[in-house]
């Protein structure tokens, strides 16, 4: 991973790139608010809050678009962070087991039914707990002599994901057919019906984690050069790794808790952004946050509109995987060619 363009990350360029990316995200959000299965009139929606137009726009479309933006930003930022941490552009929030833990616990929530102990918060709460459990496991087994070692953590993550897969299959045996189908729908990663409360909760939470990550952009640059190089420029490698690991894991956990495991956003977006602005994290991170929001919002709009053609709405996780998996293979092939893996 080269940061040869780092010299060009002047404050002016950081501002310009960030603003441009932010503009792109806002544009994507506005376009998604206009596009939908039903035509709505903004004038009528604003004039009469009790109108059908207002209900479609403000209680169905807008919360879903905003949730998509938040989840996309969170997954993309987590992707950048994990890639810096593991020094590998193919690292993804999912590779480290976080999503697996969330998915297994979220499926367990289906055993209690949708309106279990915590009502609509049951599944998010379970998924969040599962993600934290997976993070704890990966952290416990990903260290050598107290220090987080990237490739060991990566292997621990792969094993945690495999374990989570087995747990999901085992839970499947105990679920009634309808609860099973419900759990499966969530496992494909759908933004689905959204209420404003959930969007608000995620917004506050994600903002804190995003700020924590953003303040570490320079340290991420140092880490991508390697441990020795990072030490030379005075970075507390162990501490930095820990902070980035937990901030990125917590972001992923929250995103999965609300939207289910939507895959590949954390690979596709940082990869595209890196090609446009280079590998300097002062540019890469803010641009990926905005790019991730734009990407998921637009993909989910495509999934909403697909209802018109299919008569049923495909989960957005299906679309991101259809776009992301081939791209992953292309990057992989290129990296093998460069012997850079």
């Amino acid at each position, binding site marked *: 991973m080269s940061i040869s363009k780092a010299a060009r990350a002047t404050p002016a360029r950081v501002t310009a790139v960030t603003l441009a990316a932010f503009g792109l995200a806002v544009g994507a959000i506005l376009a998604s608010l206009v596009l*939908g*299965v*039903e035509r709505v009139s903004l004038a009528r929606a604003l004039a009469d809050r*009790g*109108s*059908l137009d*207002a*209900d*479609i726009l403000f*209680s*169905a*479309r807008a919360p*879903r678009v905003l949730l998509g933006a938040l989840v996309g930003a969170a997954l993309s930022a987590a992707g950048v962070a994990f890639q810096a941490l593991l020094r590998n552009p193919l690292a993804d929030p999912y590779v480290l087991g976080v999503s697996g833990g969330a998915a297994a616990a979220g499926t367990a929530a*289906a*055993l*209690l*039914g*949708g*309106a*279990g102990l915590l*009502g*609509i918060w049951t599944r998010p709460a379970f998924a969040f707990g599962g993600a934290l459990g997976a993070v704890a496991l990966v952290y416990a087994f990903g260290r050598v002599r107290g220090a987080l070692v990237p490739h060991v953590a990566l292997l621990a993550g792969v094993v945690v994901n495999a374990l989570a897969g087995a747990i999901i299959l085992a839970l499947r*045996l105990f*679920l*009634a*057919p*309808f*609860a099973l*189908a*419900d759990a499966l*729908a*969530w496992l494909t990663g*759908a933004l*689905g*019906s959204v*209420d404003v409360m959930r969007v608000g909760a995620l917004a506050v939470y994600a903002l804190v984690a995003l700020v924590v990550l953003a303040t570490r952009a320079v340290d991420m640059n140092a880490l991508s050069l390697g441990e020795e190089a990072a030490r030379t420029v005075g970075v507390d490698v162990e501490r930095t790794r820990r902070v980035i690991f937990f901030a990125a894991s917590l972001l992923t956990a929250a995103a999965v808790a609300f939207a289910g495991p939507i895959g590949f956003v954390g690979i596709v977006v940082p990869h595209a952004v890196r090609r446009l602005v280079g590998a300097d994290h002062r540019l890469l991170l803010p641009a990926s946050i905005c790019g991730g929001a734009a990407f998921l919002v637009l993909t989910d709009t495509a999934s*909403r509109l697909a*209802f018109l053609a299919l*008569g*049923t*709405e*495909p*989960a957005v996780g299906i679309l991101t995987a259809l776009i992301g998996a081939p791209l992953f293979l292309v990057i992989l092939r290129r990296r093998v060619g460069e012997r850079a893996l």
Partner: protein
Amino acid sequence: MKRLACALLLMMAAACHRGPQAKPREARRIVSLAPSTTEILFALGVGDRVVGVDQYSDWPPAAAKIPRVGNDLTPSVERILALKPDVIFIATSANSRELPDELERIGARVVISQVETLDDVWRDITVTGDAVGRHDAATALVAGLRARVAATHARVASLPPVKALVVVWADPLTVVGGHSFVDDEIRAAGGDNIAGDSAQPYPQYSVERMLARAPEVIVVGSHKAGGPVLTPLTAHASLPAVKNGRLHTVDGDLLFRPGPRLVDGIELLARLFHP
């Protein structure tokens, strides 16, 4: 060669067996791998001959005491074998394709029911009755059930159909579309299914489309494991069903299980559509 002769002989025997005047063989030991079939068997009065059921067969209460042979997709073939059934019922909606072959290899008669429409349900009850030697009981059961549906329909037929939506689960919004026996139930109960034009039997439905079509009544089928989540529906103030308190939760087994209790479901829907 000997094997071929045997097979031919068996086929002839089977053909004779199906002759018009031959009385169908009485099934003594029955295994049911679908909750709807278990209900049909009890309604036909042969519940005491059911020796094994799948894990979801929970009605009537007596069915809960019958030994379980596991889950409907991958039942324990060993346990089924140990029960020495002479007939095994399978629903294609619930079971895999390989399973019938595997069960036939162990020497039992396998009856597969495939239900898509309400007419299929009636046919399925008759087929089930024939398979256990209860042809007359099955004919009478179907006639009784159809008469009840006709009576319900007669009450609501002259009234304007109510715009209705039957929800399988609310998040992500999954509803009853066209081409399903539940769609037939809605129509029989005097409802106009707003998602009935969907080609899928159970589509994941667009929330915007639901809002625009403004169902007057929304019925959510619950699935035992706790009550259903309703917030994705109640969040929409413009929905007439929500505004007018016509969002109802009912026992999902009455609506979604293609057995005799589905008529209870139709009567319930009719009361909710046309109080």
